[in-house]
């Protein structure tokens, strides 16, 4: 974050009809609507929560390192693992994916920003509000204790009388709003704002996967919204949705949760699939093998993900016919996923691979995810799952897919796009340490959990007695977890060291990896306006194709340098969406509404007032501040001359304004 350099005269800038102008300093970060800054905010916030979720994980592993552990005690343990799961899923992996999506998606489609920049800011601030709200439960001393899937009726008022589950319900509700807004925004962005010539099937795979994820979010979030509302009403207003004493069926919660929950796991993994689909071809010096199949398999996973949710309920007593149907449907998810794995391998096969850190992580995803996927397939056999479910074998499965799949992929993305975002590379030596520590620690932690699970160790137990054969591997796993932690610390050190070094070192250059996709047309770090002019897209991997041609022997030869191909970022007369206060104000209102629902409805008043004020301020705010940053008055109208067509489209996308009275 840049230092505070410019102080505003507050008088003029907080009015309803002006927009904030700061271009630097903290105020800029608060009011920014720049998708790149929002991406960075998402990333930084998610890493902050990752530290929290990771510390919770370490507490879990400390407690379980020895039999009859006493580090936490039963009550705290239950809260810790619940918050660990919730934090990691909703406050770490999802926002990290959102960080990449926000930063890269407009760049990859050659756009100036997203379709609704203010809404983009809004979704970040709402996410932050939700995340802080959720973790507030620790401070109040009443963290949720019902497990991340919060099975009723254990989460009802009778069995969970504290406020913990209210924090859970409201906190997730708030982050859900954020996801929904962001999903709608990005869908419109992808559909409407692609550079000239970029048909859907010339979009980078990462963009494709993000698009699929946004559709999953669009349709899955409302389902958990319903579930959380019902839970909230049960707990606070005496409704009877999950109270068996009044004749309710607790399985309703399970259905609603998992109808959301299974698409959710693909929401977690597909961004990472997208990332490594960019990394692997780049470092293999080959195009992605079977691009159409990669795209279609991603879509297929998205679709099939809707028809398998009850595989989480194989033993809950939903009836043999239902179990059979869900068991079979689940098995076939292995097919499109397998297509992906094999296509990555085929991409690497025959390549000339540079094993830089991003590639190490990407290759790690391919192997580690496969392990998790295969154990997933063993769960999908319903009879087998009756032995496996709710044991550490499941814990092993989902950490292999989530850590080994999603998180490692995200680390690949960090190393790959760091120069794009910050203008310098992360150090390779530290990067390799980072990778190897993580991969070793990860396998040490979660590998033994397969064994523990098959030996019958249940999950969510705060302690186990000696004599069940669990001692050795638990200790082993705990050691592994701390090795992961060292790996994470190495990453953080790398970030700091590399940033320090970059101050004196020469800039990274335009094309550090010899990359392929259009985001690299703009210089590093990306200038505020992204592109000087629109890029005409003629093919997939346009950037690469402008650099390389083929000589008469069919050999690949360089035809242009990166300097010739890239834009220099010198354009000054570009029109950017103006920053706004209202997103953060609106988001700030939501936690108050939440507290109101939990403690006293009076809190809802200031909360609701903030929200309303923000909405109206938002609507009446001039769409573009004539004096805004990089703004040049008079752009509100269509240009009167006949500019080159690129520039016109360019202009239109610059004016990605929003009316926002609705929705």
């Amino acid at each position, binding site marked *: 974050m840049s230092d505070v350099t410019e102080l505003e005269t507050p008088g003029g800038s907080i009015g309803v009809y002006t927009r904030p102008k700061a271009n630097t300093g903290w105020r800029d970060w608060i009011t920014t609507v720049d998708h790149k800054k929002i991406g960075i905010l998402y990333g930084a916030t998610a890493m902050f929560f990752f530290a929290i979720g990771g510390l919770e994980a370490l507490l879990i592993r400390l407690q379980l390192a020895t039999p009859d552990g006493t580090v936490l005690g039963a009550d705290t343990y239950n809260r810790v693992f619940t918050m660990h799961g919730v934090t990691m899923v909703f406050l770490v992996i999802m926002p990290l994916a959102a960080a990449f999506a926000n930063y890269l998606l407009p760049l990859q489609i050659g756009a100036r920003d997203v379709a609704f920049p203010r809404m983009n800011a809004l979704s970040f601030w709402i996410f932050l509000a939700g995340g802080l709200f959720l973790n507030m439960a620790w401070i109040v001393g009443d963290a949720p204790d019902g497990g991340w899937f919060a099975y009723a009726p254990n989460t009802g008022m009778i069995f969970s009388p504290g406020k913990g589950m209210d924090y859970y319900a409201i906190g997730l509700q708030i982050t859900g709003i954020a996801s929904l807004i962001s*999903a709608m925004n990005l869908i419109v962005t992808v559909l409407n*704002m692609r550079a000239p010539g970029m048909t859907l099937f010339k979009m980078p795979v990462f963009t494709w996967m993000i698009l699929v994820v946004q559709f999953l979010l669009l349709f899955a979030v409302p389902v958990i919204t319903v579930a959380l509302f019902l839970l909230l009403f049960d707990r606070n207003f005496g409704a009877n949705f999950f109270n068996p004493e009044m004749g309710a069926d607790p399985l309703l919660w399970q259905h609603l949760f998992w109808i959301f929950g299974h698409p959710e796991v693909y929401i977690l993994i597909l961004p990472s699939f997208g990332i490594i689909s960019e990394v692997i071809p780049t470092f293999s010096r080959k195009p992605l093998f079977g691009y159409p199949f990669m795209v279609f398999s991603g879509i297929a996973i998205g679709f099939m993900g809707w028809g398998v949710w009850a595989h989480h309920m194989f033993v809950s007593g939903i009836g043999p016919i239902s179990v059979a149907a869900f068991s079979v449907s689940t098995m076939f998810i292995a097919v499109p996923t397998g297509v992906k794995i094999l296509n990555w391998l085929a991409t690497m096969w025959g390549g000339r691979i540079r094993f830089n850190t991003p590639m190490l992580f990407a290759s790690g995803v391919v192997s580690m995810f496969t392990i998790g996927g295969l154990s997933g397939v063993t769960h999908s056999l319903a009879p087998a799952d009756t032995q496996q479910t709710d044991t550490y074998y499941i814990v092993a499965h989902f950490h292999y897919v989530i850590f080994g799949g999603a998180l490692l992929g995200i680390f690949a993305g960090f190393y790959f796009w760091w120069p794009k975002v910050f203008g310098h590379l992360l150090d390779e030596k530290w990067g390799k340490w980072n990778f190897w520590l993580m991969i070793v620690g990860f396998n040490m932690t979660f590998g033994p959990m397969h064994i523990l699970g098959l030996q019958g160790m249940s999950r969510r137990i705060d302690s186990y007695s000696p004599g069940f054969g669990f001692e050795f591997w638990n200790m082993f796993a705990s050691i592994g977890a701390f090795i992961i932690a060292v790996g994470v610390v190495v990453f953080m050190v790398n970030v700091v060291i590399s940033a320090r070094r970059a101050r004196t070192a020469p800039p990274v250059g335009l094309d550090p990896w010899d990359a392929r996709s259009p985001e690299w047309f703009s210089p590093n770090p990306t200038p505020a306006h992204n592109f000087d002019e629109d890029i005409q897209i003629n093919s997939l991997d346009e950037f690469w194709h402008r650099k390389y041609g083929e000589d008469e022997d069919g050999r690949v030869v360089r035809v242009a340098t990166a300097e010739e191909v890239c834009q220099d970022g010198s354009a000054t007369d570009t029109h950017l969406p103006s920053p706004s206060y209202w997103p953060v104000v609106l988001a700030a209102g939501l936690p108050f509404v939440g507290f109101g629902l939990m403690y006293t409805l009076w809190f809802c008043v200031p909360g609701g007032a903030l929200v309303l004020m923000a909405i109206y301020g938002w609507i009446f705010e001039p769409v573009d501040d004539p004096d805004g940053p990089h703004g040049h008055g008079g752009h509100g109208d269509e240009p009167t001359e006949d500019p080159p067509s690129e520039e016109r489209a360019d202009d239109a996308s610059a004016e990605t304004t*929003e*009316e926002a009275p609705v929705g």
Partner: protein
Amino acid sequence: MRPPRPLRRPPLADTAAVSHGHGTGTGLSDNKLLMWVFLGSECLLFGGLISTYLIYRSRFGDGPAPGDIFDIPFTSVSSFVLLMSSLTMVLALSALQRGDIRNNRIWLLTTALLGSLFIGGQVYEFTTFVREGLGYSTSPFSSAFFTLTGFHGVHVSLGILMLMSLLISSLRGTLTTERSETVEIVGLYWHFVDVVWIFIFTVIYLVPSPTS
């Protein structure tokens, strides 16, 4: 040596569906697209509430059963009111598109009034039900019923709020033909809420409900 020629590009499975004009973008308004995307999402929200209701409609315990208390003639009238508000909504839009500001205001106001009438009917219905012993906590059925119709009512109320905002904007002279798209988008929302009620009215009220 002759200059290198471009590489063979990957075979691409272009779809025609998206290629408008420039071959990119849909050529559609961002805002309208946003609203439609949002409505797609709302389908799953209401779907969840409706399924919850259906699962619980026969679980009324010792409380009143749906078949005992629904007042079909009354609800028919208020459903009709809501249906007609969709008509006035399109009329408002079409007036504005013609540049007929006066009629636009009249129809906007009528729509809001019809909507309020519907909400009034719902409030009346709720109070009657409560008087007849169907409280929010009476049974899973009652909770599901009030939640579903309440969510719908909140949607209608938000719609009324938007209509009133449009009206104010119109009175201030900022709602002109160029901005008819805003009215169209609010209209989409309004019609959606109506369409949901068409569903609810049939499935929840008209399909015979269990009686105690």
